[in-house]
């Protein structure tokens, strides 16, 4: 329910403009806009980029401080070569067994849709963000749709 909550009319407008551009070329493929993503039973069933994810690429995005920076908050034994694993969130060892691929996608896209409004985990492909967003980042997501898919592909390998 929450990811679809698109209160600002301006936002709705810009999303439909973006969609019009996308659908102008090819309706099937291409990324889904953040406000257009459907969550059902905590799952996002389909790829948000329209393509499949690359786990090796996702592993890099996960560790990169300017991208996922997931290690800021999560320990992950599979990445023991990296120094400094955070403790703000749970360890992700075994995350790929605890959650389905569709649920992992929802967690990365917008963690609030799986946990609560109060979760401190940022939404990595969501425009439901905090106040006073830095001007150069307004309307932008932390990760691209393809980076989300890459990270999800990597998470599913954490058995």
């Amino acid at each position: 329910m929450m990811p679809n909550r698109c209160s600002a009319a301006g936002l709705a407008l810009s999303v439909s403009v973006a969609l019009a551009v996308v659908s102008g070329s090819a309706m099937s493929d291409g990324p889904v806009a953040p406000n257009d993503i459907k969550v059902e039973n905590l799952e996002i069933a389909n790829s948000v980029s329209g393509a499949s994810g690359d786990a090796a690429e996702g592993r890099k995005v996960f560790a990169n401080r300017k991208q996922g920076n997931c290690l800021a908050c999560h320990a992950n034994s599979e990445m023991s070569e990296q120094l400094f694993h955070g403790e703000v969130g749970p360890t992700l060892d075994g995350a790929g067994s605890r959650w389905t691929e569709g649920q992992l996608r929802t967690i990365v896209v917008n963690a609030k849709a799986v946990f609560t409004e109060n979760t401190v985990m940022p939404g990595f492909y969501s425009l439901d963000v905090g106040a006073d967003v830095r001007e150069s980042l307004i309307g932008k997501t932390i990760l691209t749709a393809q980076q989300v898919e890459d990270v999800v592909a990597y998470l599913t390998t954490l058995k």
Partner: protein
Amino acid sequence: MHRVFEKTNVALTSLLLVAIVGTANAGGPVDEKLIIDGELEMITRTAAPEGHPLDEVISGWHYRTPETRALEADSFQNPGMLGVELGEEYWNKVEGTEGKSCASCHNDAASSMVGVGASYPKWHAPTSRPINVELQINQCRVNNMGAEEYAFDKSGQKPLTAYIKHQSYGKPVKLDLEEGDMKAWWEKGKELYYKRTGQLNLSCASCHEKNNGKYIRADHLSQGNVNGFPTYRLKQAGLISTHNRFRGCIRDTRAEFPKAFSDELMALELYVTWRGTGLSVETPGVRQ
């Protein structure tokens, strides 16, 4: 529906945490005392004031490495003391059209300024807002010395503020919320403390209330108290002001940050200082 799910997850998580204790960092504040030069015992842990969300108020000193803690415990080694000494020079420096220095009116800071650093921000009736030590210095410069205001973090502002606060070394922080509209500003500060900002969508509370004692990547999160400010930061090799620290933390959420001494940051300083009620003034604190 979300709630139920969260519970399951929490249960799973705690099971896992038990299983991997080996890889987890040793979290939480260290159980040690801060005694400066083996003489002056600082209050670094104390019961929280009424209405505080946490049970215990803890100084950021407890969350630092043994090396950083040792630097603060020895006033000869504390690199921030150089800033305090520089502040003394500014205290005695004659500036402005009136031919006066701070000392011309206040004489010896070691007696006239005791307790000042432990009680600011204070209500300032002439401007009808709370002011901090930096703004009080500017008031004196303009009204009593005929000198120009210091710009934020420029010239003598940080050293002189550190010098004045250092005269309260060891004294417990205690604000007077009864004066003027202090309570309304406290409320505004509280609202800002819990306001989630930026693309990362985090509030001060996300890090310093919910998660203090835990590591966020290589940083050990403290309660974010200001009793050591201006504080010496090893990373930046210099004194760092309270508003500079606030702006840095807000920027890290990928948000635009308010101007120094704006209503927002003054309200936040008032509220955050209150959250550290009872802690000794540690200025100059030493942090990583």
